[in-house]
């Protein structure tokens, strides 16, 4: 009898991938158990200072996601945990976990940090890669989630000071490791990677020369919260370096060490670290990057690379560094390298090793327990057409564990894995999740304001500096304050109960808490207020810890004075607070997918597996898109067979309505309530209602104009070559391929990513079917990233000649009757070479689908300057548009390989499921609202709104602004700009803000 399916998922690894997968699963109604080996989640990304290509501060974009995960009712985080056993099968697994003791009671610890301040023992701080020290009782970093401390049992001498200091009595020395058994439906592996141990490359002197650091150490050096406060200093003498060198491919593309693969992200983070280093250094800083191939293959990566060269003056040297030696006196480093055959040495103040990625530590043990196959590099074995599935049914993989990859790919794969995990247990959706019931909301509109003020001691964090009792007494004297009290920890569970009692007891209709930062604690208090029957927006907070007691520790009098001002100011705002309703919109649980290529089809199948209706609109006569033209792959899978299976599956699925030769003519409405007109091939028009849109319009091949393409039949594109080979019509003695045709030039500066892979694929095919044919590949940078590096080396060993060219010495193709000539500069022989190839094969770039412009305007979504679609956030929301409910995947986002498109397609499906899985959507309450008599219809607001959440509508003949509450994010841009002040912002009205300002500045008579 088939075991009952369980509506829960286990996510292994709390890095950015694990977090994204957990959020998507939890938002789609599934119980998630997120486990991590360390004391808190965040993974390696939490250590990074900035992220490319946007130079966003890594913590700024990651911590909101961590906080959301920490607070999500459907997600249980188990830290210090590792898997010890697995039984059962897909749909019903039993997982045995061992949770190592933290020696701290997690429920009681609220992360106030007093114990760490007072602990006498110091230990190496591995979060800062050993460049700093921490106490024996620690959290990795201030924004850690869960913010619970941990005792480092090896270093701790057991003196007992922390137990005494801890006001919350959260220390428990006798806490033992515990065994936990979880019952889940599917498992997602996101354990990330282990940075390569740079000591293995002894010739670079890491570990011996102080000024040779790894790239992760350099991230900490760059970080404002790092050991040197963001100033770039040399570990040997604390001087600011004048010349720094980056050595790429350390521990990657290294055959002897057994890591022949390329770690995919080092080129880019190397460049980024060089740029940020220059930005952080007041004095002149020269940065040189020693590289073999500059693999800036991602979206807008080449822009970044060019800016690094031109704007930031980063010097790029194409050479593999032989070794590094140290001048013991000055601590400077001599980098020995070879540049066009002449050995050179340059002196640098600091050398940064761009270390590659290796599989996570003791991953083979986990693999054995879970019985999943690893590939020859000990990464997780996956197939090109099923990049998210491991060898075991029901266990999925995402992130660097399947192959070294960059953050956007990991995040996309995370959503994809979430979709796969959900599809197995789709019927169990919502079964194991607890939906919170709130008491009926009390109508306070007719009541006089009665405010309750709760001032927090936070142990001694606030109470140690601010005279809390004096602030409470003062609060009692303020107008409209009906009750005020002090608490030791306002955020603790028992104080929540106390607040609810006080609300009933004193008939409070507004609550103010003076404690720490609302960014982490506002949701907690809003929920408590709502549980007491009050509208959650009748609550406000002021920060008297991080922005008062902690920063005025030596001026207790002024700090107390400031705390009183802040309380008076927030009470003034609270008096004016009005209840706000969270707009609830219902959701048509149907999807619309534009584009029937491999991405469109996969997305449709995934949504259908989740049980949702899908309208799949394809412009061509048949499904398949670009996949039609692919006859063979580098990996030994048959693309055409997979294509047919996909088409059969899509057309056979009764939930997927396929419209071939059709086009989406018009899309109106907003998330959950879209109405679209589909122009069918027979001229009819069909109107459909749907909740989400997935753009999978793919991309097309660039029709070259250079190199006599179209003028000489022997000049063909890679696709045309593939056609010939596939149909057996290929016969040639020597073939020359030219890379970067129509890409990496002024008009299209960014790389088209897949041409290098295509060239190598065809070159190997040629060598396979007619080994004697000469094959030349003229390339600028051979960007065979990740495991594709193996094929690059295979091609080279099989005699394919790779010749580097650069922009100022491009190859020339000239044609004389009956003969084709190719002239190019051979950098090693340093001479012009002329060939008469049978074919000149152009690796034509993949360019945006010309239809993108129309679709973009229709959906009111932006395009990048290259013409691809611009997603909400390049790093952490690659598959969402800024506009809610619209998603994208595949080559519409940017050129990519098939497995990457499939990952994105599944990802987009998961993202869409977070909306489709709900019958109604509750939106944020803080929105703009328009007073229609004041509105003059001047359209300023419509123009300003980045989310198109406000539009001008006819009302009794008068143009009036109307807010689409579902789309409005409450940023207030429109409200501020409105000339007639017709727009008021919920919870941040002008009167409230002015009242806050006035109260803050009032001269109080008290001393």
């Amino acid at each position: 009898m088939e075991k009952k399916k369980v509506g829960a998922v286990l996510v292994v690894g709390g890095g950015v991938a694990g977090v994204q997968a957990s959020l998507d699963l939890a938002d789609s109604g599934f119980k998630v158990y997120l486990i991590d080996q360390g004391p808190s989640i965040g993974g390696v990304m939490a250590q990074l200072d900035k992220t490319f290509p946007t130079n966003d501060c890594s913590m700024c974009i990651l911590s909101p996601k961590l906080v959301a995960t920490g607070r999500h009712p459907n997600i249980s985080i188990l830290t210090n945990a590792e898997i010890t056993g697995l039984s059962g099968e897909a749909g019903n697994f039993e997982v045995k976990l061992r949770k190592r003791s933290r020696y701290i009671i997690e429920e009681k610890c609220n992360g106030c940090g007093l114990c760490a301040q007072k602990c006498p023992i110091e230990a190496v701080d591995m979060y800062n890669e050993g460049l700093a020290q921490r106490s024996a009782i620690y959290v990795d970093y201030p924004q850690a989630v869960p913010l619970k401390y941990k005792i480092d049992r090896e270093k701790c001498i057991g003196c007992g000071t922390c137990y005494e200091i801890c006001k919350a009595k959260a220390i428990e020395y006798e806490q033992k490791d515990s065994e936990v058994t979880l019952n889940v439906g599917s498992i997602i592996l996101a354990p990330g990677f282990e940075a390569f141990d740079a000591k293995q490359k002894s010739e670079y002197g890491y570990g011996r020369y102080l000024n040779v650091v790894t790239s992760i150490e350099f991230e900490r050096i760059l970080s404002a919260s790092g050991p040197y406060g963001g100033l770039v200093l040399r570990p040997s003498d604390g001087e600011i370096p004048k010349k720094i060198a980056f050595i790429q491919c350390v521990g990657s593309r290294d055959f002897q060490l057994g890591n022949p693969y390329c770690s995919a992200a080092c080129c880019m983070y190397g460049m980024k670290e060089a740029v940020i280093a220059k930005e952080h250094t007041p004095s002149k800083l020269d940065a040189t990057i020693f590289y073999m191939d500059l693999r800036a293959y991602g979206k807008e990566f080449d822009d970044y690379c060019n800016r690094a060269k031109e704007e930031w003056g980063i010097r790029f040297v194409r050479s593999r560094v032989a070794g590094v030696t140290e001048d013991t006196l000055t601590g400077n480093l001599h980098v020995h390298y070879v540049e066009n055959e002449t050995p050179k040495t340059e002196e640098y103040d600091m050398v940064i090793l761009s270390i590659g990625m290796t599989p996570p530590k003791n991953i083979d043990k986990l693999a054995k327990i879970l019985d999943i196959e690893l590939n020859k590099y000990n990464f997780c074995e996956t197939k090109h057409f099923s990049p998210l599935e491991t060898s075991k049914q029901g266990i999925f993989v995402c992130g660097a564990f399947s192959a070294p990859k960059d953050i956007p790919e990991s995040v996309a794969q995370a959503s994809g894995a979430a979709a796969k995990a959900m599809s197995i247990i789709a019927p169990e959706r919502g079964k194991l999740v607890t939906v919170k019931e709130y008491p009926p909301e009390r109508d306070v509109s007719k009541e006089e304001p009665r405010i309750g003020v709760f001032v927090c001691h936070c142990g001694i964090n606030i109470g140690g500096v601010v005279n809390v009792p004096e602030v409470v007494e003062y609060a009692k004297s303020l107008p409209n304050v009906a009750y005020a009290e002090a608490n030791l920890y306002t955020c603790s569970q028992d104080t929540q109960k106390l607040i609810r009692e006080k609300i009933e007891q004193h008939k409070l209709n507004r609550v103010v808490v003076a404690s720490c930062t609302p960014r982490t604690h506002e949701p907690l208090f809003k929920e408590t207020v709502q549980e007491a029957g009050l509208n959650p927006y009748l609550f406000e907070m002021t920060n008297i810890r991080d922005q008062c007691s902690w920063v005025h520790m030596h001026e207790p009098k002024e700090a107390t004075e400031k705390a009183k001002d802040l309380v008076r100011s927030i009470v003034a705002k609270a008096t004016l607070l009005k209840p706000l309703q969270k707009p609830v919109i219902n959701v048509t649980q149907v999807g619309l997918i534009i584009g029937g290529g491999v991405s469109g089809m996969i997305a449709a199948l995934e949504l259908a597996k989740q049980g949702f209706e899908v309208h799949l609109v394809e412009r061509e006569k048949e499904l398949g898109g670009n996949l039609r033209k692919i006859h063979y792959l580098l990996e030994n899978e048959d693309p055409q067979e997979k294509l047919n299976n996909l088409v059969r599956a899509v057309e056979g699925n009764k939930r997927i309505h396929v419209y071939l030769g059709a086009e989406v003519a018009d899309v109106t409405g907003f998330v959950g309530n879209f109405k679209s007109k589909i122009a069918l091939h027979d001229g009819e028009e069909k109107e459909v209602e749907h909740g989400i849109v997935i753009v999978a319009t793919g991309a097309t091949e660039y029709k070259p104009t250079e190199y006599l393409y179209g003028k000489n039949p022997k000049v063909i594109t890679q696709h045309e070559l593939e056609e010939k080979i596939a149909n057996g019509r290929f016969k040639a003695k020597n073939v020359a391929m030219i890379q970067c045709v129509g890409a990496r030039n002024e008009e299209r500066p960014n790389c088209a990513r897949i041409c290098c892979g295509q060239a190598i694929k065809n070159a190997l095919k040629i060598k396979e079917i007619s080994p004697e044919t000469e094959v030349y590949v003229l390339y600028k940078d051979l960007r065979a990233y990740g495991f594709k590096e193996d094929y690059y080396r295979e091609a080279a060993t099989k005699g394919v000649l790779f010749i580097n060219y650069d922009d100022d010495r491009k190859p020339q193709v000239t044609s004389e009757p009956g003969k084709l000539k190719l002239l190019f500069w051979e950098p090693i022989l340093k001479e012009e070479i002329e060939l008469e190839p049978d074919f000149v094969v152009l690796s034509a770039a993949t360019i945006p689908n010309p239809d993108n412009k129309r679709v973009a305007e229709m959906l009111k979504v932006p395009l990048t300057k290259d013409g691809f679609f611009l997603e909400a956030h390049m790093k952490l929301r690659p598959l969402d548009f800024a506009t809610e409910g619209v998603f994208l995947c595949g080559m519409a986002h940017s050129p990519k390989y098939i497995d990457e498109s499939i990952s994105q397609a599944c990802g987009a499906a998961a993202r869409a499921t977070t909306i489709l899985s709900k019958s109604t959507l509750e939106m944020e309450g803080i929105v703009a609202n328009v007073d229609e008599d004041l509105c003059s219809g001047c359209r300023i607001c419509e123009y300003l709104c980045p989310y198109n959440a406000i539009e001008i509508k006819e009302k009794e003949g008068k143009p009036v602004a109307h807010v689409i509450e579902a789309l409005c994010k409450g940023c207030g841009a429109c409200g501020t700009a409105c000339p007639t002040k017709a727009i008021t912002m919920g919870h941040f009205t002008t009167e409230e803000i002015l009242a806050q300002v006035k109260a803050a500045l009032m001269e109080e008579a008290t001393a």
Partner: protein
Amino acid sequence: MTVISCALEKKRKLPPCRAACPADVNVQGYISLLQQGKFKEAVELIRKSMPFPAICGRICVSPCQDACSRKNSDQPVGIRYLKRLAADIEREQGRIKPDSILKKHGEKIAIVGAGPAGLSAAYELAKLGYPVTVFERMPEPGGMMRYGIPDYRLRKYVVANEIAYIQDLGVEIETGVEFGKDITLDTLRDKGYRAVFIATGAQLSSKLGIPGEDLHGVFHAVEFLRLVAQGKTVDIGEKVAVIGGGNSAIDAARTSLRLGAKEVTILYRRSRNEMPALPHEIEAAEEEGVKFHFLVAPKRIIGEGTRVKEIECLRMELGKPDASGRKRPVPIQGSEHTYTVDTVIPAISQVVETSCLPTVLLDERKETILADSLTLETKILGVFAGGDIATGPASVIEAIGAGKRVATSIDRFLNGQDLHAGREEETESVSWVKDWEKITKKPERYKAPQVDVGRQSVSFEEADRLLSQAKELATVEARRCLGCGPCSECLLNEGLCDADKAIVDETLCTGCNVCAVVCPFGAIKKNERGVAQVDDLSCKGCGICSARCPEKAIIMERFTDDQIRTDISYALKKEFA
């Protein structure tokens, strides 16, 4: 002496030694003075509690020593010996002349009986400024101290010296005045005495009540010792039998030896460990050759002519314990056997001679005067009674205690105050020691020479050396005292000690609990607010917590950091010779 009126909560916390002392002597106080070698101040402090340090140093039953909590670790502190040494040294180095007390009150007080109870009452009342006259039947004052205890235990000059101190306070003692004959309650009242304290003690020996008791050669212990004390000759024979197991039995036996008796045997109807006499007295008697026969009771004394020839006794066996908790001896039929002796000294107990007392005062069994044990009032207003006459034969220290209590009663009676108010104070014996294993053991108690300091015929240097050696050993022995009681009970109230107190600055304390760890007395702990709090009672002011506090949040009231700093600077400034 007024009860120390420090405003403690209801229960007054005392160290075990003081709690056990009937006279509430501040033992912990003078022992800690001895620790500092302050012998003079120690004696002055003892005198504040009672007038007879030298006497009690020699013959007190010392309940304090038995209660000393050090017995849980090794041996109690030698409190009695230390009191004796302090008093002797003071006497040898010239007794302190008390400054005369000005007479604050007019009312004259009469005290009948110059025994320990009477003299103690006179002493306390004199200190309060009352004119006191003590009437004593015997030619010399002292009562049992002079006439009941043999010389080898208590020299007469010691008694005289201590009584002289009382007379220096202005107390008049009229000897040779017999109550009931020369003076009566009425004559005293006529003479203007507003209050009378009857403390004539228990003068008569109890009779055996067996045939032959009135034969020649039978001397009852009390009268026997009184005659010897008066220096009269007593013709005891060579073979003496003493009946009884108390101190007076031992005294009678050892005195007989000193009077030339060849063979002295003590017959006691119970076994050795029921003997009420002091253990070291029993050992001393054994050393001096006194024989003991236990479980033997006299049946009849057989005389030859009027002289005692032998005594016939019965063997006893111990049955169920009687009211006093001691096992009741039951004669074994037919176990008669005789001892040939020529003298028999019954020393079984003492009784009060009630003939001269107005019968109204007596209790229903007409053996002692009925008096309230706390206020010592009798049935007649203004007439008080205490000591053996009210309680029956008891120890000297209990008599002294009675004297102290009656002084308070008389003082209140004369001032019209209620005698009972606030006096039923409960006392609670406390000791800060929690874990006796942790207390380091000092098993061998320093034995100081028993010889009377100063009196031997030795050269001056010799005496000086002996004296300093005794002082040194006393300090070492005093060091064994753990100072169980709260500081205020020791010297602080006497103004003799600059004891310190710890004070916590709560704004600085972060609750690291180091103070609680290092404090030897557990006097500082974290309160419910998680901040250190000092228990003033048990804090002894050593200052260890202040020296160790990681946040420097604890300051000492007297020896502040600044005080120490100024001392250091002052010391450094002075030129170094």
